[in-house]
């Protein structure tokens, strides 16, 4: 199966084009196989975005929000192509026209997980890169995942962790980032969630709390290239306002919204549809949340 027929190749450790940031880490990969157009500017400002595979609605919401703004500022998003936060990070970056690097836990000709094939194609079509230190047709094995994480951390100036459980792969990436003397950012989450345990622990250990995209963008010392703050000019009628305020607090199901506002499902549904069409709110697994 050939889904990409463009440029691909191999960059060895001695090649002048080899990313400097990755070269500086101990035990840097001997070679990088890649697909896509190798553009050295891609490696200038890289942020690793990692997190749990079992992304919650909150995780999705935060990833969409932070990554879209960070990517709009011209920062390359590096991640591991896994489903969950990783995949969402790539996707949110592509949604705002940003560039992203996927570091595969297998050869670059393999797509792991397989059903991410559309994401794989989109990354390449949007001037992104698929890279791996493993031979192109290698399938993924357990020991390769930590190696992959090392590359993700090595390529980036900093690592942003969104939702991580205890003893998760995301914590391995965070630890490596610290070991490489790079910055670790962590997004706080509700303490009731098991997916906040990892991030809370990171914050305790001195990772920087991220509450808005600027926290990360400022670290990169670059000016925002384009302002992508989505301001909608619409005539907020009252019900829209109430729904918006409720959803700003937490993602909710339609039934709960109906109970809280005292409006019928018919009214709530049609208000929500209009807000969705305008791109103000989104839904996942039956819950609605503010973009």
């Amino acid at each position, binding site marked *: 199966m050939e889904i990409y027929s463009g440029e691909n190749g191999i960059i060895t450790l001695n090649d002048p084009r080899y990313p400097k940031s990755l070269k500086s880490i101990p035990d840097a990969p001997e070679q990088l196989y890649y697909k896509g157009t190798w553009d050295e500017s891609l490696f200038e400002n890289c942020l690793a975005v990692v997190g749990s595979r079992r992304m919650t609605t909150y995780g999705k919401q935060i990833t969409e929000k932070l990554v879209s703004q960070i990517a709009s500022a011209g920062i390359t998003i590096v991640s591991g192509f896994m489903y969950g936060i990783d995949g969402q990070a790539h996707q949110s970056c592509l949604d705002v026209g940003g560039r992203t690097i996927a570091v595969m836990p297998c050869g670059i000709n393999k797509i792991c997980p397989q059903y991410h094939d559309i994401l794989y194609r989109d990354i390449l079509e949007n001037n992104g890169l698929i890279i791996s230190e493993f031979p192109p047709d290698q399938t993924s094995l357990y020991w390769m995942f930590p190696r992959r994480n090392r590359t993700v951390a090595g390529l980036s100036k900093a690592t942003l962790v969104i939702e991580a459980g205890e003893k998760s792969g995301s914590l391995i990436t965070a630890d490596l980032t610290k070991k490489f003397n790079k910055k670790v950012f962590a997004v706080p989450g509700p303490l009731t969630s098991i997916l906040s345990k990892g991030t809370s622990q990171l914050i305790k250990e001195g990772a920087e709390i991220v509450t808005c995209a600027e926290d990360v963008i400022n670290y990169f010392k670059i000016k925002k290239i384009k302002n992508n703050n989505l301001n909608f000019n619409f005539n907020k009628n009252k019900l829209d306002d109430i729904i918006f305020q409720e959803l700003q607090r937490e993602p909710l199901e*339609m039934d709960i919204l109906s109970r809280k506002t*005292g409006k019928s*499902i018919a009214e709530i549904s049609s*208000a*929500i549809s209009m807000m*969705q*069409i305008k791109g103000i709110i989104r839904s996942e*697994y*039956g819950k609605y949340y503010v973009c």
Partner: protein
Amino acid sequence: MSTENIMFVKIKSATNLGLDTIGIDVEINVANRGLPVFDIVGLPSKSVSESKERIKTAIINSKIDFPTKRITINLAPADVPKEGSCYDLPMAVGLLSLMLGFNVSEDSLLFGELSLDGKVRHTRGALLLSLFAKEKGYKKIFVPKESANEAAIVQGVEVYPVEDLRQIVGHFLGKFKIVPVIYKRQPIIDKKVDFDMKEILGQEQAKRAAEIAAAGGHNFMMVGSPGSGKTMLAKALPGILPFLQEKEALEVTKIYSASGNIPPNGSIIFTSPFRNPHHTISQVGLVGGGSKPQPGEISLAHRGVLFLDEFNEFPRSILELLRQPIEDGKLTISRSQARVEYPARFILVASANPCPCGYLLHPKKSCVCSEREIKNYQKRISGPILDRIDLHVEVPVVDANDLSCSVGASPCGCPSSVVRSRVIAAREIQNKRFSEDNIFVNAEMRNEHIKKYCFLSQEVERILKQAVSNFNLSARSYFKVIKIARTIADLGEAESINVSHVAEALQYRPKQA
């Protein structure tokens, strides 16, 4: 050979093949010459051949002499396979007419199964027989007493209830008269519904979707964790469906009569059927079949609800069978011996878990399925099937705390009877609208009907166009949204479809993929 030795008579009866009825001549010959034997010819099946023993014993037990002569019975036309026990009565009466010397008039149809003691038993298909009698101009039909009310649904045919052999013989000998039954239309009793809508707490969106489904005849799918109330909601659905109209009721009763599902002394069925087959059902069980094709669950659910619980657990090969009937509202079963068409216009109600463990949407319990398992689970239902389901809702688990505080408060919602009255009002609007078209409900609208009856203002069309691009709607989904919006407008007794109707309809599109 003298003419007295030839004893021959022809009695009229009929057989049902699917929902069609074929006239059968029962020819009986009793010859004085030859050894005493009793033969039935004309492609009898096992149950027909066995009727020899029933007839012989029933006659003897009715204290009538059984002739020790050569008896030959032919069921004509001889090339149509005969099945069932309904020929017992015509054969026995024909034989006795030769022995006791009475006449059965040409305009009579006889039909019924004998018991060994001479009684006549409830036999399936009596309604179809009387419809046939009316069509072909037979004046009188003799049917088992317990099936008589069912047969008498048809006006213009005299239905004689037969209790036992002695009684019918006495009638023909002129000793006394059997009085034709007068059709007793049983009062429409609301079948006891398992759940009332007001018993279901929370689930406002799902209840609203159920109301729309009932009003417009839309197929309906619920996805939710175990214990969220999907099954309860589906079982409450019959309580909000309107009663069948005369024409629909006759269609349904015919199917139930043909399949032997009408109880003794039963009458026409006015309540919508509700069928709830288990997911281990076979292909024939679902769509019908057999060498003499019987209706399956989809036909028994005609003009009612087919509820498939645990939708993902049904084998894919079985679910794919639903595709054509959902489109066409009928199914033709072709077998070597017969080709039968059964109607199957039902509301499909499906319920499914979001993932194999069931807790993907659960607020408290965490799901233990991997992404791949979830994908594979959801993939079990094919796109074409999902595409034929109009309303999709996610049914969240209701928090026990929420429940206790809301008892008595508004979240309980309307009782079924109130919802039903709204549904009936919406159906009446639809009846008026489709009086010239051969359809009943909005869900049956084809593109031509949509063009004719669903005028969209410029503003509505603009919103729809935006939705198509924002939500990636397919062409089929686009029309589905319009159909649902039409039903929502009908429920609100609105003449034209406005923006809020369309906007609400958009919330019921499938969320995945």
